[in-house]
């Protein structure tokens, strides 16, 4: 049995990170938090992740570019993008650029968990 991999949550909002951290812990999901794209890229280098959940509308960086960087180094990562502004453009553009799925803020945690499960299932295939 392969070692279970972790989820990386990337978001610049500290409150959001904390809340999500609590929710993941409660559901016994192994996770790590990153506050920026740089932080995320660094963590990916040193730890074993399979799914990244990332806000694509963080200030100072194009989240989709960040996703492209991650996938360049680790093509097998599945990325679920988060956006606070339900924009058809952002959603479709994210999928076009290789995101597995997207979730809207405010997050429906069960929906996010289900998408993470599906992403993992897809990775296993």
């Amino acid at each position: 049995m392969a070692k279970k991999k972790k989820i990386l949550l990337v978001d610049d909002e500290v409150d959001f990170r904390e809340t999500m951290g609590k929710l993941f812990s409660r559901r016994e999901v192994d996770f790590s938090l990153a506050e920026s794209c740089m932080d995320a890229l660094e963590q990916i280098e040193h730890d074993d992740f399979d799914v990244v959940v990332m806000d694509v509308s963080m200030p100072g960086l194009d989240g989709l570019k960040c996703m492209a960087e991650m996938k360049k180094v680790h093509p097998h990562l599945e990325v679920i993008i988060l956006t606070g502004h339900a924009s058809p453009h952002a959603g479709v553009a994210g999928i076009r650029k290789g995101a597995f799925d997207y979730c809207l803020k405010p997050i429906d945690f069960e929906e996010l968990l289900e998408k993470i499960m599906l992403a993992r299932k897809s990775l296993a295939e």
Partner: protein
Amino acid sequence: MLRIFSFIKESLFPAPPPVFNQEELGEAFRKRYTHFRSLLTANNNALQAMADLEKIYYGGDSYRMAVIRSKITTILVNVYKMVRSLLAMSSGRYGELEKIFDTINSNLEYIIEKKPELPQGPLILGLSELSLKDATLAGDKMACLGELTRLPGIMVPPGFVLTATATRKFLTAEHLAEINRRLQVLDPDDLDALYKGCHGIQSMILALPLPADLEELLLVHYNRLEKVAFPGCRVSMRSSALGEDSATVSFAGLYRSVLNVDRTNIVAAYKEVIAGKYGARAIAYRRQRGYRHEDIEMCVGCMVMVDALVSGVVYSIDPGQEDNGLLRINATAGIAKGVVDGSQAADLFLISREKPYPVVYNEIRQVVIKQGPAQTAGPSLTYNQLRKLAETALLLEEQFGEPQDIEWSFDHQGVLYILQSRPLTGGHPAVETSKKPEITVADSREQPIIFGGVCASNGIASGEVFRVDSPEAMRRFPKGGILLLAHPLPEWAPLLNRAAAVIAEGGTEAGHLATVSREFGIPALFGLPDALKLLEDGQTITLHATGRAVFAGRREDLLRQKNVKKDIMAGSPVQRILTEALQWITPLNLNDPASPRFKSSWCETLHDITRFCHEKSVTEMFSFGQTHRFDQSAAKRLVGDVPLEWWVIDLADGFRDGAGVGVKTIRIEDIVSIPMLAIWQGISAYPWQGPPRVSARGFGSIIFQSTMRPELDPSVPSALTTKNYFLISKNFCNLSVRLGYHYAMIEAYLSDLLTESYVTFRFKGGAADQQRKAVRARLLADILLQYDFRIELRSDSLLARVKKRSVEFLEQRLQVLGYLTLHARQLDMVMEQPGVVDQYREKFLREIEEMLGKTAPTCGEDDNGKEKENTVS
């Protein structure tokens, strides 16, 4: 010539597909399967979101732009995923789908992102410079007052307005983006969060500095007011919003007014009024009535405070009554605030609209007001004042061409000032009549005969029940009938322009038929497990889809409720956006897969694309066995107590751990493929009786067929004619059977995710003539129809499918297929003998029922698996 020859050769003897070894086969299967599953999941999500969107649109309740955006985004993302998956499955065939999708995507984005036009103008305009045409710059309230300054005999306090241009100078695009970002993450149902969020936004606005030039200009205009009135005069700062353009929407009392403002706090008061746009109640009201925040822009009026003796509100027509020819006046001592916000008791006067304006009725609820040194007590208004108010109200009504709601004050000198005049909304008819026509049992004369299910399309209708379960019944369906179905399949859609309503035992609001029902405005109630038992053909019923109830007979009392609902969102910007957007989303033009128009180039809406992708993905998936031949050395022979010859190829996790390694055989006990085991239960339930007794004529025909088609001759050895192959994984099984002369294929994927689950059965051929083969295929179809299969039958070629059901349900269907695959062998040969078809039908059904009875409830019982929410364990 050569080309023609090669064409004929290719048509008659197509090149065999490439041969794959087990590993390659497994890989090809897994890849295609991953895309197929992802397509099915996306299909489910897209259809669910479309159903949600239509429910929102037709439901009559209010909805928010954020929800519309989110649903449309979900639909677009999932439809795009479907397109991508189909392209991957079909090696890029249907490439034009992507272009069609892009066009629809851009159209929708344009509709959603389109912003109201914002005219530019001066930062501040004097009240006397304004007229109604300036409403887009000064807001309706101040533009109206400006208009009134031109009317002889009407007094408006001196003042000016800080225009929308000023607001945009104060709250820049960046500020608005930040505000919108905060608003979008607010959960509208969490009132605490809403108030907290609003407070945060308002504090942010109050803390922003006013641009220096705007502040300077504001003070210059205040100075001018001081000159007109008196030094140090107090002003009122009032909201004057842009974009409240619907007569049914009042926006009354939602925004801020700041009274008794002087030079020292005029800037703070201005910001306070601007921030009032983001008050919790204002936000909630806009959401409820279909206004986006950007549809409303706040301007601020600044007027000299009237030294009011008595103030109040006059309605030029008494609202709430039939036209009674009266005006309604409320009055209170001092300023009008208490009347407007309802916080203070006020005197009420009902006055005739005809000269000399007699008082018809009054209620004096106020503390007595001194109307001058000579008067000690009396009502708040004198007769002369009432008459003056009546004359003014009627003048304003004439000026604006509709009944008016007017705020006024009499000052101590007895001068009447008009502070506001706006169209009278007459209450909120939309709100009052938008109550859902819920029926309670107590209300109705008789109990419903069926209650429950899922309302797939709102409405009430009455008619005669007509059950449709075959193309033949479809042709006989009467206009105005109530369509009764076991499952609401898309193929029944053409009936919806004739049906009065639809009732189905299965289904949800997300299916195609549900969508089309809503599109046609036909009431539909799905998910009623006993509908077929409880309703009879020809029975007259009344369906109350919204109340999820079916009543016997024609219920006029319920039918009268049909049009009671009014649309609370009528005419709002959000409703306009959704109306436009839906045109690109829900209409379904691709109904019939057999039609020559069932092509990607005919896809005009996102619904068309989902329908097309779904249909083609099924075709692509089920051609897997035809396009992927396998290297037979990968197969292991099933050994043990096994009838006939069966071979098994493991694609992934189909064998018990460690089983089958290094050997050429496998035992049934070592198989862990759930669908294969179910099929096997069916195959092994009853021993095959051997070939039926054939008449000489029947046998002669078989010999003839064999001579004509050597590949059908069982004496000619060939891998395909002698072996039956199972391709398996834990949850998947594809069984191809070439038993003698017929070809059968069973394929199944069983999953906890209902969207992924299906069972498909193909059956074709036989050794007898075409007619007898067709009779056998019909017999199989008849039996499978009884077990909830969806059937396509052309001559002797049968395709039967069942999908989106629970694992247990599908396992039973696989048992049925396993049983039939074995026992239908060589049956075609006797199909011309009289009574034989009935005899076999009876035998098969009896044995199948007995077989299923051993393990689980018999068919027809609800499996509780009807397209419920997907869960991932």
